């Protein structure tokens, strides 16, 4: 009789010999499979020359591994198969606007006339590129109803920096920068808002939301006090609870009356593009996330683009480079007297300086412009309506099994639930989210905004079909009901079917291993 204890079965824990599970391949690091000598690029031999590097020539090896082209292809394809993406399924992240990324955008961005031009080649050799920037600028200013736009910020947070610096520059021109050091920020704001304000030396004064999740002008007036120390308020509209701020015009008026400015975080513009103009609301500066509202890809964490539209009051302070129309041709003005120049006098209305080298994220401008031309004004408007419709459909189909912190009322392009419906189940928002992974969906945004306990913020975008929404709703219904029926194992052990189980983030923070080291 065979000794069953020593026979090497493929066990439950390790069902295969390779550790692979069909299409899911366990892929090592390049440092574990590559070598210093292998190269997947063929280069011509360098001509023999006398080195001009002097004593600066590298003598030490770098330690980089190389892979041949087939090995590299396989390595990265295998890695990609471990990722969820918009092209995989509904990606319900609130305030991220995970809409479809059109491939025409990619094709246009790769036209040599856009992709293969240098930012410092003579301007008359890139006239079409600057014209494309001007066209994008026109779409953004027209959609927002604002007179000016700065295209150079490289992401939303960078755009916030741009807007807030413009405000500070305007205050300096008025001689009030030293006295106006406070920025009002609602508790529900995205973390980049207070981070940006603090970076610029402002003191953040929180403004509490009303019971219904919105900011009321009375609360703003109270936070303003006599208004002499307030520089600005940063407001997100629609807000991070998915609601339009009903008193935003009054808030803008109160700020202006007190001598301050209104900065609007435009992350949620997808709810109102083509339907409402921030310029009509009294906004002084607003950043627009091209990688959210205007379909440029999220790329696993960038690159983004965050152009900022300005009111007439702030337009003179917009940073370099400036777009200028001269005798029918568009040019970029790269240098001009700036506000921080020695010799600048109080009262000078000047660009506040430069935020980044060169001209901004041209690759994202081309993609966004391609999207705008494809959709047109009517498409953008319809997209906003469908985005709001889709979020409300999810709300309507889940309101009886999940809990809404501010009561059941129409939301804009995103719907906010909280953890109340899990009370008594022993389960958390995190557990619920992880169980969604097993159902084939990326979790929604969790624990944001902070003003609500165990927040779950769902933004479907207009790209989802009714069928897709119904599948998503079905999964969440199933999970909500299962939670209510006391099924905890499904949640606590989730995700069971993803390439990895829950990862030990405590260990990663206590014993950080931030690079590969040969042992």
């Amino acid at each position, binding site marked *: 009789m065979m000794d069953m204890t020593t026979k090497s079965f493929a066990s439950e824990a390790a069902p295969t010999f390779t550790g692979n599970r069909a299409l899911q391949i366990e892929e090592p690091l390049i440092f574990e499979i590559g070598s210093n000598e292998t190269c997947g690029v063929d280069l011509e031999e360098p001509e023999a020359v006398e080195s001009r590097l002097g004593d600066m020539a590298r003598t030490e090896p770098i330690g980089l591994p190389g892979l041949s082209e087939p090995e590299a292809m396989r390595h990265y394809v295998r890695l990609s198969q471990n990722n969820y993406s918009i092209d995989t399924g509904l990606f319900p992240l609130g305030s991220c606007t995970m809409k479809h990324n059109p491939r025409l955008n990619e094709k246009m961005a790769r036209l040599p006339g856009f992709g293969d031009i240098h930012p410092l080649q003579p301007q008359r050799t890139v006239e079409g590129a600057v014209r494309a920037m001007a066209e994008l600028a026109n779409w953004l200013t027209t959609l927002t109803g604002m007179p000016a736009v700065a295209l150079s910020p490289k992401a939303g947070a960078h755009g916030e920096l741009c807007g807030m610096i413009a405000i500070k520059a305007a205050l300096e021109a008025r001689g009030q920068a030293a006295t106006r050091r406070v920025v009002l920020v609602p508790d529900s704001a995205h973390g980049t808002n207070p981070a940006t304000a603090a970076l610029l030396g402002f003191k953040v004064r929180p403004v509490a939301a009303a019971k219904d999740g919105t900011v009321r002008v009375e609360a703003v007036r109270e936070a303003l006090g006599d208004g002499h120390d307030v520089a600005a308020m940063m407001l997100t509209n629609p807000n991070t609870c998915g609601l339009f701020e009903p008193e935003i015009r009054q808030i803008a008026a109160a700020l202006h009356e007190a001598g301050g400015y209104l900065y609007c975080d435009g992350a949620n513009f997808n709810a109102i593009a083509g339907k409402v103009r921030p310029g009509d609301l009294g906004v002084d500066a607003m950043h627009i996330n091209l990688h959210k509202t205007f379909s440029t890809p999220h790329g696993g964490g960038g690159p983004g683009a965050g152009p900022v539209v300005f009111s007439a009051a702030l337009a003179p302070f917009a940073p370099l480079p400036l777009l200028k129309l001269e005798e029918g041709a568009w040019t970029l003005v790269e240098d001009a007297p700036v506000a921080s120049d020695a010799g600048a006098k109080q009262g000078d209305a000047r660009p506040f300086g430069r935020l980044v080298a060169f001209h901004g994220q041209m690759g994202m401008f081309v993609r966004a412009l391609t999207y705008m031309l494809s959709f047109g004004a009517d498409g953008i408007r319809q997209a906003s309506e469908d985005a709001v419709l889709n979020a409300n459909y999810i709300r309507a189909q889940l309101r009886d099994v999940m809990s809404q912190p501010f009561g059941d009322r129409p939301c804009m392009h995103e719907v906010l639930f909280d953890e109340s419906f899990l009370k008594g189940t022993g389960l958390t928002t995190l557990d619920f989210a992880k169980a969604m992974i097993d159902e084939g969906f990326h979790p929604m945004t969790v624990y944001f905004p902070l003003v609500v306990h165990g927040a779950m913020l769902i933004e479907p975008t207009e790209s989802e079909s009714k069928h897709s929404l119904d599948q998503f709703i079905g999964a969440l219904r199933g999970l909500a009901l299962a939670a209510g029926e006391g099924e905890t194992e499904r949640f606590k052990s989730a995700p069971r079917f993803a390439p990895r189980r829950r990862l030990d983030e*405590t260990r990663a*923070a*206590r014993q950080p291993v931030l690079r590969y080291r040969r042992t």
Partner: protein
Amino acid sequence: MADMKYTRDHEYIRVEAGVGTIGITGHAQEKLGDIVFVELPTIGKVLSKGQEAAVVESVKAASEVYAPVSGEVVAVNEAIVAEPALVNQDAEESAWFLKMKITNPRELDGLMSADAYRDYLETLE
């Protein structure tokens, strides 16, 4: 038996012969989750009541630890810097953060006793 007092921000201070031992309460470490990092003040630093004394970080949150009363830092607990997990294991005893020479003992009157703190915790539920 040393006098144990509590703040609304979940710090405790144990006073013995004019020196206060300060840390975060069991409730605080539970709320924060696994502690991964602590930042302690330098010895000799003078703190006023309510001023930021230290920082404690978990994976998902970072929290300031405020001085419950005014004083001068005379010792810091290197053990919790080396092993932040101690704060989760023994917050109110061996995982103290800092010791300070108290400059104004009357400030202690405004703090909560152990019973008062227990009652306070119940109101937070």
